[in-house]
């Protein structure tokens, strides 16, 4: 129980510390924004997401719209680079699905019962 209270106080301290950082400094220089710029929003852990959205909104309000837009563009480009080509078995799989669905619809319109 004692340990639990100490852990709770510690966690509260950490989040308070994070809040103070956010309030005091420019939201656009928040570590989460820097991280998202480098690795993308999808790289953030789930628990950091609400805070990221809060900070990015604050950053936009303080004239950092270009930074947030750039994060989004980078994210699009990163995803595009990663998956613009199918590699390995995925193209074979995609082709099989296309053929199955294509012949299903051909059969649907041509075969009469």
């Amino acid at each position: 129980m004692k340990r639990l209270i100490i852990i709770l106080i510690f966690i509260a301290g950490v989040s308070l510390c994070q809040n103070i950082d956010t309030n005091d400094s420019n939201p656009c220089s928040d570590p989460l924004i820097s991280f998202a710029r480098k690795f993308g929003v999808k790289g953030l852990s789930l628990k950091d997401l609400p805070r990221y959205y809060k900070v990015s909104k604050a950053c936009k309000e303080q004239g950092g719209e270009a930074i947030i837009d750039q994060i989004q563009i980078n994210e699009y480009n990163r995803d595009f680079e990663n998956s613009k080509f199918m590699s390995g078995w995925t193209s074979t799989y995609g082709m099989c699905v296309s053929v199955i669905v294509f012949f299903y619809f051909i059969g649907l319109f041509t075969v009469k019962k």
Partner: protein
Amino acid sequence: MKCQILQCKTILALFLIIPLFGQPKLTVGVGLGFYEPAMAGFDDNDLVAFPTGNVINRNLLFNFSFFYEFFHNARVGYNVLSSYDIGRLEGFETSKPVFYRTINYRMIPLETFFRLKPKVELNFTLTPIWGRGKITLETKPSSSEDGVGHTITDDWNELLNGFGDEDALTQVASANGMRSDWLGFSGMIGYRYYMKPWLALEFKAGFLNNNYDKDSWRFQGKKVKGPEMTIDKIPIFSFKVVYALK
């Protein structure tokens, strides 16, 4: 209290660094599906007046999905399309039981995809289906004073007779339903448009192939006949909003 402890920053850094080593991409999707099954067991039933069929209870499917991107071009997940029907059954001897009908098409899809443009994705899905149909009657026990009136068992017998099952039930527990499971498979091709890196609209077209058998329904451990439904080899279209959690 202004926290400037090194420990504080280390913990924060840890939270930030952990996702670097593995960037699972989790997505949830909510949407609607459209299909056109023939439900003769409900619509053309001469013995039981089932709730009138309309677009919502016949053609509309409520869709929920959850996907995990395990590779740059592939994701696996869980997808469920559900059809619901509810209403009062008319034409029973004395009672008017409330009728619930649910059909769930549960899938574990394997999807591969590629991006045509930074905001546009094409995806290809093949999935096994574990379908389940469930029918429940909410009915009152006999309300007559001598206890000889219409009972739950009578209501169920009337319903099952409506499906062509002449084998009368002798006793029915109060809260129960009949259900049926079947297997099938589905193939779909989808088009996804990303409005934001984490938010997308998706349209899919494909088919459902279900091995549904009207004679394989179960009711309280007994095999009974169910409604006649033509749900094998039907085209399906779905539209959903996809949200990337991570």
